């Protein structure tokens, strides 16, 4: 089991969700985040105060997947989240020791398999 944490551009989120959908990745959780990297900073002014926004809006996806899905998921995000400009984001693959489905108490692989 792995937890894939991806930071992507908010304007690309719909594309990423679509790509994941096609790869049959069904469960995921997203969080609004703000990132700091090599991106161009945007300058804003409020009355006399000029401000550089060093943090740029991003979306974070947390996706728990079983081993066979790891590569497909990563590739799908990379394909669909890319614009080629600085700021496209990162993907981290974290080891997971255990996964539970709260509703049923199922564990690990069963916990992330949709029961449709």
């Amino acid at each position, binding site marked *: 089991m792995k937890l894939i944490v991806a930071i992507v551009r908010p*304007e690309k989120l*719909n594309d990423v969700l679509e790509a994941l959908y096609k790869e049959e990745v069904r469960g995921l959780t997203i969080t609004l985040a*703000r990132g*700091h990297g090599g991106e161009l*900073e*945007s*300058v*804003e*002014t*409020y009355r*006399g*105060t*000029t*401000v*550089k*926004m*060093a*943090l740029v809006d991003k979306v974070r996806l947390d996706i728990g997947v079983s081993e066979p899905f790891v590569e497909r998921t990563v590739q799908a995000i990379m394909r669909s989240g890319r614009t080629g400009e600085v700021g496209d984001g990162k993907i981290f693959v974290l080891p997971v020791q255990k996964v539970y489905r709260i509703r049923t108490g199922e564990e690990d692989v069963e916990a992330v398999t949709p029961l449709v």
Partner: protein
Amino acid sequence: MLVATALVLLMTPALAFFYGGLVRSKNVLNTMMMSLASLGAVGIAWVVAGYSLAFAPGNGWIGGGAHLFLNGVGLEPRGSIPHLLFMAYQGTFAIITAALISGAIVERMRFGPYLAFITLWALTVYAPVAHWVWGGGWLARLGALDFAGGTVVHVNAGVGALVAAVLLGPRKDYGRQALLPHSVPFVLLGSSLLWFGWFGFNGGSALGANASAALAFVNTLLAPMATLVVWMLLDLARTGKATAVGAATGIVVGLVAITPAAGFVPPMSAVAIGALAALPSYYAIQWRSRTRLDDSLDVLAAHGVGGAFGALLTGVFAARAWGGTDGLLSGHPAQLARQAAAVLATASYSAAGTYALLKLVGLMATMRAGRKEEGVGMDVPQHGEEAYTSGEGAILVMTDRAPAMDVQTREGRP
């Protein structure tokens, strides 16, 4: 009349909230500024030349130059109110009409070209049409009824909006993603303040606190009530849920529809006009959202369709006993024809004028924001601000220092 003018002025910020609530939060300042800036740009243009073009003596098509720069506009009465006040009152109409158009092109038009466009539009499209109807022009002579601007304001703005939406093209995500209102409470605030201000718009058009004003006032109260009820029923019938955005839209449509008729029809006819007017606009919105026509905030459906329908219904319900000319129901079908002529003439001129102006502005400057700007939202690139900030991660820049200052600020502090 002082109060009426203040109320109409308030309509422009009210519109800013109505429109601002309907867009995404990354575009809210741009959208609100499009309305508010009209208070400056169109307001000053009106003082300089617009008023003269609309209301100075001229021919049937356009006013003259006698009142340029408010020349000869003083405290002497014009009708029952001071001339200066009449000018100001009419100015608030020009401002809101121009601002209405912005609803068709939000979330994608650059701010500078927009300002140039509405300023020119107020002078070359609004002022002549106002002259036709209220400045003693040919439509006035024809006998078309327009109490407070059904054609001059709403048909005019609605058609202008249609042309602008077509020329600018849809937003890049239109029809692909859901573009949802970021704050429905703001939409409700805007429509409520619009209703409040509209009492000045319609009530004040009687130019005095007389019986005609009272009638116009009460009709402005009754018609939107009926539209609101019908709109909620249509919503309930279609999806089982009465939407809040729908309620706000219904109120505005009712206000638009009663505008040309307010001082000419009996109160129960106002209820009828309000109730009937819900239908075409409701279905126009349903239809529009399934097309590629990205009239983003439905200016055409609410103001164009609502205004045209209201103007026609004025020809149906108007009654001499209540201050109008007799209409269809009182046995004068000719009035309906006159109303249709007024709508058609306004719509044609507005379409042609808006088209020409946008082409002209398009020659001077790029009107449309880039795809990337659209993605980021208009607020930061066009106005250098965000609507809602938490301030975290914002680095202060000392404006009087060298470019390396932000590192210096980071390190050079006590």
